[in-house]
């Protein structure tokens, strides 16, 4: 399912599975995944927006992201592929996350 179409051409997309449905979500350089999903009228679970609560921890299935900070995640979480939606910025064009994991 495609999210709202952006009005500019240079926008890329990442994939996010939420409630069993895969969405293609538009982003621009430097945007965090959570904000992009909210802009696309999706409702991923989140609370603090500040890397503290870990409500928005999701599994990175493909691609690369950079987390601005990851206070609420353990080394074990990160080793298992979890990232925080509220802190993750896509670094590659093939980013895919599973919000149901």
């Amino acid at each position, binding site marked *: 399912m495609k999210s709202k179409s952006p009005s500019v051409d240079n926008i890329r997309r990442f994939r996010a599975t939420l409630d069993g449905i895969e969405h293609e979500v538009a982003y621009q350089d430097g945007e965090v995944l959570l904000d992009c999903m909210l802009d696309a009228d999706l*409702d991923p*679970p*989140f*609370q*603090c927006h500040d890397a*503290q*609560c*870990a*409500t928005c*921890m999701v599994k990175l299935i493909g691609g690369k992201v950079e987390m601005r900070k990851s*206070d*609420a*995640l*353990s*080394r*074990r*979480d990160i080793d298992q592929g979890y990232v925080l939606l509220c802190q993750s910025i896509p670094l590659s064009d093939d980013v895919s996350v599973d919000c149901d*994991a």
Partner: protein
Amino acid sequence: MSKIGTLESVWRYPVKSMRGEQVDEVFVAYTGVMGDRLYAISSSEAPPEFPWHTNREHEEFVLFSASYKNHETTLKPAAIEAAFKEALNPPYPLADAFALEVSTPGDETFDVKDPAFLESLRDKSEGELTLHFTQKNAVDCRPLSLFSHQTLVQLEQETGLDLDKRRFRANFYVDWLGADGFYENELVNRRLRVGERLEIMVRELDPRCKSITIDPDTAETQPRILKHIARKHNGFAGVYAAVLTEGSVKAGDDFFLVD
């Protein structure tokens, strides 16, 4: 005053983020349950407003258990009855009374002040770890946390998960009388009496974090419960309370609505 429920069990957590202990009868001071979170481990890498080494970054920390060496002296101040008779605030014992032993999941036992204990945690943190002791209770927000049997049942029904109440790390687990789940949310700013003397005021809802995703027996995580609470209950489950009048409580005590 109307009876609204029963205190199902009382818990304290001698070391913040470690496994809790259920106690039979305990004094509750303005600072919270006696012996609750008197010890905490801080990390130099954690933010200054929340410097603690917790089960967020070290899930197995919930498998560590701690027990006071002189258990009985940590449950009630010695002069409690005399102090209450004179309407005085009963003085706490000296810090030495709260000497503590920690048992690790690997069956090692340390005196909490033994440098070897912190050394054993060194590879679990990016930062330098320091032991803190306070008689003021190193709680996150308020002196007391309450969670109800009804809320647990509702969350189990909503998620289909079998949930251990210990995930919610409350001081008081309460069985409300004829109420539904999340009834405690309706008690914000209400004054309650527990047992014969303790009076508390429910102050706010308890915002939940990763801690509740951690199984208290295995340290495995289940993010779904936190996500569910975020979506269906605005991120809150349970309530925080302040203590208005100190007193002792025990399992089976009644909860009364004062006003």
